[in-house]
């Protein structure tokens, strides 16, 4: 699944794209708990979260997560966008709540690995 497929499926808007818009996303994880993301993620490239703080971007960087989707209309702040641009991490926002955003991606073929 490509970034453009993801944004279409969850009606998302891209906040910043880095230079990895061509990445193929195979599996995703939905979590507001960064402790769990650190402990249980295997090879997910996409994280869906309702959490807004710079450590979300740090966690994504450490775990090689290529894109973060903020659910329920949450918007990353300027510090997070700045960090994401620096680390080439894609940020997307969607108005769908976590359950719906995950469900739509799952229905479209996105799978989980680990968490």
């Amino acid at each position, binding site marked *: 699944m490509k970034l453009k497929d993801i944004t279409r499926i969850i009606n998302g808007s891209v906040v910043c794209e880095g230079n990895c818009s061509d990445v193929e996303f195979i599996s995703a994880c939905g979590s507001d708990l960064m402790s769990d993301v650190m402990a249980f993620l295997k090879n997910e490239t996409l994280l869906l979260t309702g959490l807004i703080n*710079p450590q979300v971007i*740090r966690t994504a960087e450490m*775990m090689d997560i290529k894109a973060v989707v903020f659910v329920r209309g949450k918007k990353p702040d300027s510090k997070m966008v700045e960090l994401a641009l620096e680390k080439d991490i894609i940020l997307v926002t969607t108005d769908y709540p976590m359950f719906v955003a995950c469900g739509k991606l799952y229905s479209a073929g996105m799978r989980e690995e680990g968490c």
Partner: protein
Amino acid sequence: MSNGILTLVYDIPAMDMISAGEASSNVKKKLKQLGVNPLIVKKVSISMYEAEMNAVIHANGGSATVNIGTDEIVIIIEDRGPGIENIDLAMKEGYSTASDEVRQMGFGAGMGLPNIKKNSDSLNIESEIGKGTRLEIAIKFTS
């Protein structure tokens, strides 16, 4: 410690949730530049970030020293925080004394120390109440 190729030293600022993780991020970048196996880079990133976050969250910051040797990477995270009363208990999955504020930031599930153990070849914790804590984490290139 094995003969070092490179030593990196960082300050870990206290309760600064914006710059927390800066040291781990820098080490990750360096290891990638050095062409270290991505699986090893991941283990170092996870272990160091967990330890760095602990120093920020539980101990008012500290310092990190990373020794990149020929056969292993050794990460030392030291702080002058409150110390850990019962290390065996702290190593248990789910044990956490994190504040509500920390939990609201998505941390404090009591997964960090067990995660470091899982991702490293050796983990040595020395801690004294009222003095501070020192973690020495080794990750071998062959692991």
